[in-house]
């Protein structure tokens, strides 16, 4: 992500004090705990013009759920301002910076998996596809039910491993039907789930984050 943004002429800074957005606690229902972690995020990123996040899920946490967490708090104004400066990587490129071709090259066939948070909380659907269509040598094939969940869901994957895995099994079926070389997604957590299962099942499909693809020259 850093390479791509710098290649496009942007200055990228990485606040080294950053940790986590707090979503694991939030999704488990531990809101006060999540808010403590969110406080740290707000302090760390207070001065950033634009915040680029290589994950639809973390972006959704900050943009959609932080305002809920800080609803009746004195910081609510700060939070809503900061939320509007947070972008998922592909929407930053396409919707904010107006870039759809980053000059990347990758040979093969790929299918794109929509992470649920990016898709349904943020409405990101076209941006990653536009970017991938312009990757030289890459052809994009839609898989069946590309928009159905991969089965990760945070602690759900550990609390209900049988259901979580069954969902990924369905995903493997859909991805395999496309005969794609790569399954690409904008969410590291989906990729950990899908990649982990595909690798256990010895699937030849390689799982890549979209930033890795856009960085290929």
């Amino acid at each position, binding site marked *: 992500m850093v390479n791509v943004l710098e290649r496009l002429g942007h200055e990228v800074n990485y606040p080294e004090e950053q940790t986590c957005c707090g979503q694991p606690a939030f*999704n*488990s229902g531990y809101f006060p705990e999540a808010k*403590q972690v969110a406080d740290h995020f707000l302090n760390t990123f207070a001065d950033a013009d634009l915040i680029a996040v290589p994950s639809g899920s973390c972006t959704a946490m900050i943009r959609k759920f932080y305002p809920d967490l800080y609803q009746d708090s004195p910081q609510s104004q700060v939070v809503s301002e900061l939320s509007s400066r947070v972008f998922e990587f592909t929407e930053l490129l396409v919707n904010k910076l107006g870039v759809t071709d980053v000059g990347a090259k990758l040979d093969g066939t790929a299918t794109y998996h929509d992470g649920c948070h990016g898709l349904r909380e943020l409405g990101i659907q076209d941006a990653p596809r536009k970017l991938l269509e312009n990757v030289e040598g890459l052809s994009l094939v839609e898989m069946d039910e590309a928009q159905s969940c991969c089965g990760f869901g945070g602690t*759900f994957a550990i609390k209900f*491993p*049988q*259901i979580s895995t*069954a969902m990924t099994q369905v995903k493997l079926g859909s991805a395999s039907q496309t005969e794609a070389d790569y399954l690409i997604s904008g969410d590291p957590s989906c990729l950990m789930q899908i990649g*982990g299962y595909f*690798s256990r099942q010895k699937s030849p499909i390689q799982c890549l984050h979209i930033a890795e693809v856009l960085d290929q020259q």
Partner: protein
Amino acid sequence: MSQSTNPTTQFQTDANRVTADDDRRSFLRSSLRGYQTTRTATQERFLNYESARIAAGDAKWEAIENLDIYLAQFADKLEARGATVHWCSDSNEARSAILNIIKEHDAKSVIKSKCMTTEEIHLNDLLEKEGFEVVESDLGEFIVQLREEAPYHFVFPAMHLKKEEINSLFQEKLKSINTNDPEELTMVAREVLREKYLSADIGISGANFGVAETGMISITENEGNARLTTSLPKVHIALMGIEKIIPKLEDLALMLPMLATAGTGQHLTCYNSQLGGPRQDDESDGPLEMHVVLLDNHRTRLLADPEQRDALRCIRCGACLNVCPIFKNVGGHTYGTTYQGPIGSVITPHLRGLKDWKHLSHSSSLCGACSETCPVKIDLHHHLLRNRRDAAGKGQGMLAEKILMFGFTIVMRRPWLYRLAGRLGKVGHVLTKPIHGTRIDPFYAWKKTRDLDDPAKQSFKQYWKSRK
């Protein structure tokens, strides 16, 4: 459904069994795929489906926000036409009210059309124990009744069964001919049921909507069985949850197509009947008595919750089940509830207690497919999150989780500790290598079915420093 007393254990056990059954899961998926294709096509016939969803949500919202007024209006109108309205605060009251009506008429047999609310109050069990013959007349319900099991899906009660299984069931229970032809199987059921309509003393139905303006119940169906159930027997009893109210008759013009579209992918179902009282003096048919039993059963508890009361807008179309990846992989019986799927996971903790039913709110990846499809725009997946918050707030989380979350907060607020944890993680990874993949591996729940990459040799932070 396994007969376990603890709903969480029962859920986990049944989920294990169903997720391991590839054949049943793929059967379920292919049935729902057909539904999804038709539903999408029907939605496209609306001028603007999104506006229709908003309007439908608003109509229900108006009713829920003024439920006291509309319920009173509904009851007054019904009573003015000679119906009797029974107000029941819980399932025991509703069961007694219905039992008393049946006993007063010296009835022997009862015919029912599909009604999930009777499942909610376990009416069939009671009536059978009291010695009455109870026959379900909806084909799907008839089938699950013969199998002595609960409906699998609150709109498609027997969707889990293949035609071959129904064939063997009918041969065994009804001594029917050997056929896998759906039409012939339907005819077998029809022949049995026609007799039952004629001999039944009491007809029991549900209600999809209660129109306050006119004092009518509205019943949606495809088989005509509800019409026969509500008009042939001398007495008709309708059991209705208080949230089924809609303000005006003209609201049906929107609600009926929305229910059909979201529920089955039809533009309208084959039959929609509005019933506003027993047979009137100038009428030649219909029941001599009509009783409407209104059931609260903790719905008012949900009504008192300003964040989640929109769940009372639900029209029980089942669309959220049909798109839910959890439902598709664990099936309906696993939930152990009257209402399965996302809506069931949202409301059951309110209706039956958060402590015992909170696991349903956790057994979701919060993917949001349910909220995206809901025809009345209930914020379903966020309500699951709110139930999780309420459970954690009441200290109902597991001890291990509480400790984990405490540790998480400590570490994530201190960058030096976060870096240290990263380093310790790497050391820990090397040290625990001998137990990797075994049951005592801390990542066993993950690694049983999924690989996990080794920690990266260089963290991003280290890379960033080296780059500068």
